[in-house]
């Protein structure tokens, strides 16, 4: 490599990777290290406690509540998100006019544009409000008594799930749409000649050929939903009644930045990291697709 090239590489890569090291790698290693300490920024000495934080996790009811809520929230939301997104994308693809198709894609994507915290505030104050909220106003038409959507432990998680599907589904509809558009048209035409109806076409052509998109979409959606935080912070006020809206992300936030027990928070965040790693590995194994069109 000549001198000019070497100089160019050094000038660019040294500052960039200094940044990567300080703000991306060091924080990962640092949080790993802090999880073995009793780290509190207000203390002068932070003791090394080895596995104490992790052992404490095993006896922490809050942690298990958060873990359970996170799993329930993520699995249910992602499941319905993908089913609804896939069916919507398929329905949109059935429309003849290009304009109508892009119109519907635009509408479903609108909530993805808005800050999720702003949408959460709108839902918390205007939709889920017990008195005069949109949802209860609609239900009242059918004679259903007012429900305390975010104030009742039985409904809180359901409310967050409905909200999250509404807020996040546009991305996946766009991704599935792109996947469907990518399927060669002659495959559909061949199926049509063979007399396949819409449903058979979906089951025998679209669905199997979307394998790659499906693997990618479900993995990305799972990873992002494990990390959702803003809507819990707004809709589940103070984690909701009986901690019914407590998830790992809110537990990490509270432990680290409200109680300042950063060592313990770091240990919880490592558990979250581990879950995401596991999900990624399992998903990669299950979702192996080895065909090409």
């Amino acid at each position, binding site marked *: 490599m000549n001198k000019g*090239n070497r100089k*160019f*590489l050094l000038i*660019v890569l040294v500052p*960039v990777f200094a*940044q*990567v090291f300080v*703000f*991306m*790698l060091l*924080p*990962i290693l*640092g*949080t790993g290290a802090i999880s073995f300490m009793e780290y509190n920024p207000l203390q002068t000495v932070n003791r090394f406690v080895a596995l104490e934080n992790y052992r404490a996790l095993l006896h922490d009811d809050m942690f298990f509540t958060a873990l359970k809520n996170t799993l329930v929230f993520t699995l249910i939301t992602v499941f319905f998100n993908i089913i609804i997104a896939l069916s*919507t994308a398929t329905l*949109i693809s*059935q*429309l003849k006019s290009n304009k*109508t198709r*892009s119109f*519907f894609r*635009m*509408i479903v*994507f*609108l909530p993805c*544009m*808005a*800050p999720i*915290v702003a*949408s959460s*505030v*709108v839902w*918390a*104050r205007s939709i889920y*409000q017990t008195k*005069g*909220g*949109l949802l*209860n*106003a609609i239900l009242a038409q059918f004679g259903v008594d007012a429900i305390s959507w975010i104030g009742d432990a039985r409904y809180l998680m359901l409310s967050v799930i409905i909200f999250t599907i*509404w807020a996040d589904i546009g*991305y996946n509809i*766009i*991704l599935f749409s*792109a996947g469907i558009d990518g399927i060669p048209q002659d495959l559909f035409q061949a199926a049509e000649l063979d007399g396949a109806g819409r449903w058979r076409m979906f089951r025998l052509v679209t669905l199997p050929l979307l394998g790659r998109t499906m693997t*990618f*979409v479900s993995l*990305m959606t799972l*990873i992002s939903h494990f*990390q959702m935080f*803003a809507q819990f*912070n707004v809709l589940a006020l103070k984690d909701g009644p009986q901690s019914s809206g407590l998830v790992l992300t809110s537990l990490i936030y509270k432990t*680290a930045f409200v109680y300042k027990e950063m060592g313990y*928070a*770091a240990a919880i*965040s490592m558990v*979250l*990291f581990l879950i*995401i790693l596991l999900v*990624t590995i399992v998903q990669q194994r299950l979702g192996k697709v080895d065909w090409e069109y």
Partner: protein
Amino acid sequence: MKISVSNRRDFRARAFIFVILAVMAACIVLPYLWMLSNSFKTTKETLIDPSHLLPKEFTLEGYRKVLTESPFFRWLGNSLFVTGTNTVIVLFTSSLVGYIFSRFKFRGMHFLFLLLLFTMMVPAQVTMITTFILVDGIGLYDSVFALIIPAFVNAFGIYLCKQFCDEIPRELMESAKIDGAGNFTIYRKIVLPQIRPALGALAIFTFLEYWNDYLNPLIYLSSTKNMTLPLALSYFSTQHATNLSATMAAAALIMVPTAIVFILFQKQFIKGISMTGMK
């Protein structure tokens, strides 16, 4: 003209699909209409019975309250400053490093690239604890720069730009090199124009990421005047817990501009997402 039975059935199926989609679109838009409606209601109406779609008495009081009784323009300025700075810097570093990873070979390159990809998998909840200690340590607590300094490099951006640089025909760069162009000139005159679609998509994602970010501002910013819009809104909402119309007005003021930008550029947005598969 005779319409065949199967054609008529097809038309009916299509009409049915259209109706389902229209209902779904209505469900998606309704919360926004509700927000706008509530934002124009009087405080009295929202306290007594806010369950009418149209305000009984139309008022701009909510908007006046947001714009005059809170530092709204200051919040807007903070958001614009953070988002603008980060987007420009990320586009610059991503394209430059993407170009290097695509066109140069040196020892350790593969390792550095894998390292970058690895950082993409780590959840924010893991890095935020140590990053906070670092940022606090250099005295940036409660400063908007806490949202800027750690955001100079974006692993996904580098990855995306590298993919696009790989597609640039070799001859283009070789001929420029023969004409005596330096690396930076090649970057500026050939690479940047060639990877424009990737940069467009990256600009959108980076913009949305920082414009909508809530977690980082929540951790770093404590004084009201330093907040960015999403954090400011949740603060405003708790401050005005009994004033529904003002809160909805604030939410509308935050969402309407991005919605307009989106509707104007929707083609690019949707192309960008399908192209990169990224949020």
